[in-house]
Structure formats: structure tokens, C-alpha cells
């Protein structure tokens, strides 16, 4: 505690500590997702550059949105014209769904590249991670709240792996490899069902 009896840690308008870690994690995952879906830039079809610009702008503004919501006070007392203009800009940033826009732009970037299936699966994990980081930073909750959703996340990862395998099947020659992949797909489907059904049944508890 500081000499005046106040906690020196930066706090937001709700009086809680600012979620620096959550915002930093969201920023890293957003940057990683955009880079992963855009590289190589020359390999994209028409519209890649536009999608990249939209993704970068939306990503930056989604992080700015988190920072503004967490740190800027909502006092309505009189301000100078400059402060009022800054307040209008902040309101505009916090009103629009930048995270959704970045997600769509990143998926479009990925679709414009002829990337292998596993490449898209990695992007799926990065985007889910980004959305959860945004959620945690927004609600100022700890990572422990994800514990209840671990089974569903694991099931989702299994389904993504299944989709990657399904897309690889046509290119595989008939033989033991294809048979092994089919068996693995069945096992994954069963495991996914085993993870999802209890979570779905217990969603009201």
C-alpha cells in the first residue's frame, strides 16, 4: 500500500485492476492470427490486400476497444472541445464489433490462400484463443473460468482434427493409411460425443 493508504496498482472504472495480461494476450493472438492467415502475402488471390488491411485495422481497434472499456472513465462532467471529440472517438471505437470484423477478415484471408488443411486448423485454435482472451479481458475474469469449458474445447479441437483428416482423405491412396485415418476419425467422433453430451445435459447446473 502507498503512504496515503491507497493501492498503487492501476485500476479501471469499476475499481478493479486493469486486465493488462488479458489485453496483451488478445493483442498477441490477434497479431499471430493475422500473420498466419496472410503469409505469404504474394500467394493470395485478388482481394488479399484489402482483407489484410481490414483485418489489421479491426484487430488494432478491437484491442483499443478493450483498453478503452477497461481504463477510460465514463464521467459526464463538462470537458473541453478536444476532450469531447476524444470522447466521441472512444464511443465510436467501443460501439462497433471490431473483434467480429477481424475474425471474418482473417477467415477471408485464409480462404484467399490455397493453404493446407492443417494450416486452417492452427488458425482455428488461434482465433478461438483470441476470442477467449478478448472475453476474459472484457469481463476481467481469470483464466480459471475456462475450466468448466475445457471438455467442450477439447471436443471442438477433436472435431477440427476430424475435419482436417476428412479433407486429407481424398488425396490419400487406398491402403492401410486411409483405413487408419478412418478408424482414428471414428475414435475422435466417439470421444467428442462423450465430451459434449454431459456438458450439454449439465448446462443448467
Amino acid at each position: 500500500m502507498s503512504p496515503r493508504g491507497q493501492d498503487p496498482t492501476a485500476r479501471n472504472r469499476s475499481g478493479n485492476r486493469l486486465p493488462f495480461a488479458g489485453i496483451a494476450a488478445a493483442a498477441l493472438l490477434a497479431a499471430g492470427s493475422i500473420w498466419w492467415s496472410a503469409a505469404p502475402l504474394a500467394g493470395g488471390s485478388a482481394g488479399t490486400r484489402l482483407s489484410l488491411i481490414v483485418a489489421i485495422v479491426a484487430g488494432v481497434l478491437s484491442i483499443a476497444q478493450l483498453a478503452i472499456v477497461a481504463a477510460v472513465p465514463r464521467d459526464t462532467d463538462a470537458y473541453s472541445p478536444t476532450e469531447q471529440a476524444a470522447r466521441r472517438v472512444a464511443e465510436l471505437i467501443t460501439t462497433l464489433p471490431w473483434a467480429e470484423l477481424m475474425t471474418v477478415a482473417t477467415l477471408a484471408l485464409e480462404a484467399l490462400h490455397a493453404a493446407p488443411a492443417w494450416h486452417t486448423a492452427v488458425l482455428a485454435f488461434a482465433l478461438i484463443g483470441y476470442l477467449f482472451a478478448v472475453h476474459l479481458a472484457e469481463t476481467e475474469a481469470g483464466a480459471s473460468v475456462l475450466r468448466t469449458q475445457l471438455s467442450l474445447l477439447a471436443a471442438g479441437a477433436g472435431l477440427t482434427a476430424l475435419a482436417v483428416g476428412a479433407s486429407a482423405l481424398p488425396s490419400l491412396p487406398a491402403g492401410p493409411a486411409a483405413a487408419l485415418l478412418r478408424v482414428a476419425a471414428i475414435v475422435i467422433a466417439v470421444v467428442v460425443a462423450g465430451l459434449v453430451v454431459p456438458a450439454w445435459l449439465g448446462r443448467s447446473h
Partner: protein
Amino acid sequence: MASPVGQEEPRQLPVRWGLSAHARRLLTLALAGLVIAIVTRRPEFAGLAAPALLLLATWRTDRPRQVAARVSMASSVVVEGVQTSVRIEIHGLADFWACLVVEPAETVTAGAAVILPSGKPDRSASLRLVPMRWGRRSLGLLMITFSDRYRLTEGRVLVRLPSVNCRPRPAQLTGSVVLSRLPSRLGEHPARVTGEGGEFAGVREFVPGDRQRRINWPATTRQGTLHLSTFAAERTQNLVVIADETADVGEPGSSSLDLVLRGAAGAVTRYLAARDRVGLIIHARSLTWIGPGQGQRHASRLLDLMMASHGGWDRAVSLTRLPRAALPPGALILVFSPLLDPLLIEALRDLRERGFSVIVVDVLNAEPHHGRSTLSKLTAQIWRLEQEAIRFSLTQIGVPVVHWDGVSSLDEPLAPYTRRVVVARR
């Protein structure tokens, strides 16, 4: 008087349910992945949508339309700058977390958001609020957000917080101005005349009829005849506080009206604590007053009068003679004013002519805005000279004017008058 406020019984409030922001983002990811999978015929994009779809599958459909809530406060009377708390009780929606966030009204600050975990059918919390300016005002709105365990569903309830009567923060005042002549009422100020008080006044010769318990034996032994101790009589003092509410100039929060009310509240509190009889005159568009009295209930009446807008005795605006009924003879008059109203200045001159001891606490902390032109500067100079002339003219007729900035204690400007008895002159 302070009384508890709020609802007696919990009230049923409608809950507006919807997708949380997290659910909207997951839905966007899932839909975008599925659309791209169909358009590009790439199944891996459907797999990309799978985790989001699975998470959304836990969306709850059993959501009650109403919840019972009760808002209450310990007292409807609060003091500006002093923390108060509002108690909220929620009955129902035990499966949902509840996040309580106060949207405070203007000049009210709220504490941190409170989160009530799920699991209990009856939950309660205390929310901290600090009203920053006096007046009757609403504390704001309370937003209760219910969310399920996966934070996909959100139900919102809006609750209006109770209105409070926020009294001005009393200015700090530890000393008190005491007149040399006090009315013959029992009190706590030692008077110049002898009486039954506790303060030693002198020694005199014993006369038949005097109480033997007051015999001063050392003096008796020295003089050889009976002598006894005399004590000062203890009298009360009548104080009338005049609060000038005709002008409100300066920065909100430290305007002249803020200082008038805080200073008047400080004086009322201090003198009533010293068992003096205190009255109050509000000089505004209308003139209202309460005659001198004592006790906590009287203090409450005086402070409520400061908050009241209109009421009581109402006369023409051109009134320059304050009513006799509000001014007991020999009372000390303490005036809190920015001295901008010529009618009040005229009334103060009249008070002095009527023989009252008047002290003016000048609370003017602002000047009119002037431009940079020569004419504006000249106007500003004339305005300042006029203000100085007003204060000088009052001082000349025996009305001391002291300036109070509202930051320091009231003891500082009143120090020359609290250190010794003020001689009441007629």
C-alpha cells in the same frame, strides 16, 4: 429526520435476455467458417467452426422472465463527500452469476462493481456510493447482469436507486464567537455578571443570606472576616445564521452557494453542539427563517431548510429589513454571503443600525469573465473597486468582513473574533 428508505417488499422486475458479446463473437466465427466452407468447398473451414458451435450448444433455454429484487438504504439523509451504501437483495435466478454495476447520477461516484456468484436463491450485496454535491438527488441506476456458467446468455435488469437528501458538508469550526452581553438564559458561556456558574470570578465579603459552602477560607483567614468566592454566571447565546442564496458564482463544487451552505452548516453544527440557541435565515428569492432553538431535532430542521427551495414566509424581493421575529434581541448574526446582492447589504446596514453584532463571512471566490480589451480591463477594475468599497463601507459601520476560501477551516478567518469576547456595541 433521517429515516430508512427503499422498498418494503421485494419487487418483481422484468429480465431482458440476450446473447452475450462472447456468444456473438463465437456465432460470427461459426457462421463465417461454415459459409466459407460451403462457398470454397473446403471442409477444414467447417472444422474451424466446430469448437464455436459446440460451445454455443450449451446455450440455456430455461430463463425466467422475472426476478425479485429489493433496494434499501439505512437513511435517506446523507452528507456530501461522505460514503453511503445501498443494499440490494436478489431473490431467484440462483443458477446465474449476477454482476451489479451502478450507473451513478451526476455528481455521484460509485464504488467497484460487485459480482455475486451463483448457487444461492437469496443473495445480497452493499454498493458504495459517494454523493459529491448537496441537494435532493437520485443516486442513479443499478444495472444487474445475470450470466450463465459459460457466459453465453445475459439477462439485464435495470433498477432505479432511491433519491436522497444530501446535506452540505459542514465547514470545520472548533472555536466560537461569543458576545460580551448574553441574554439571561442558562447556558455554557461564562458571562461578565456573577452567578451560579463554575468559573471563578472573584472574592467578596460575606453578607447574610450567602451560601456557606462558597466561603473562601484562605481569604477569610487572611482578612479576619468571612469572605466567599464568586463565580461567573453561565449564559447561552443566541446566534442567527444568515445564508445568502441569491447568487451562485464560481466553479461547481466550490461555488459561492456551496461555500455559503457549508459554512452555514458548520456554524449551525458548532454552536448547537455548544448548547447555544441557533436560528437560520435563508436570503434568496424568498425569505425563509427558523427562529433560534436547541437540540438535534432543531439542527435537522435548520439543515433541511437550507435544502428547501421555497416555502415559509414569502415577501417581495425588495425586502431590506429582516423580520424581527427571526432576530432575538442581543443575538450574534453570522452572515455567509458573496456580498453581490445590494438588498442584503442594505439589510446588513439596517441590522447594524438596530444594534445587532454582525460578522460577515465573504465567500466570493470568483470574478466575472473579462476580455482582453482595454474597456474590459477597465470594467474589471471598476468591479473590483466596487466590491472593495462594499466591504469597506460595512467595516466602517462596525460590521467586520472576513474572507473564507472554502478550503481552510472556518476558524482561520474567524480567529480574531473567537480568541476573545466580542464586545456588543449599540
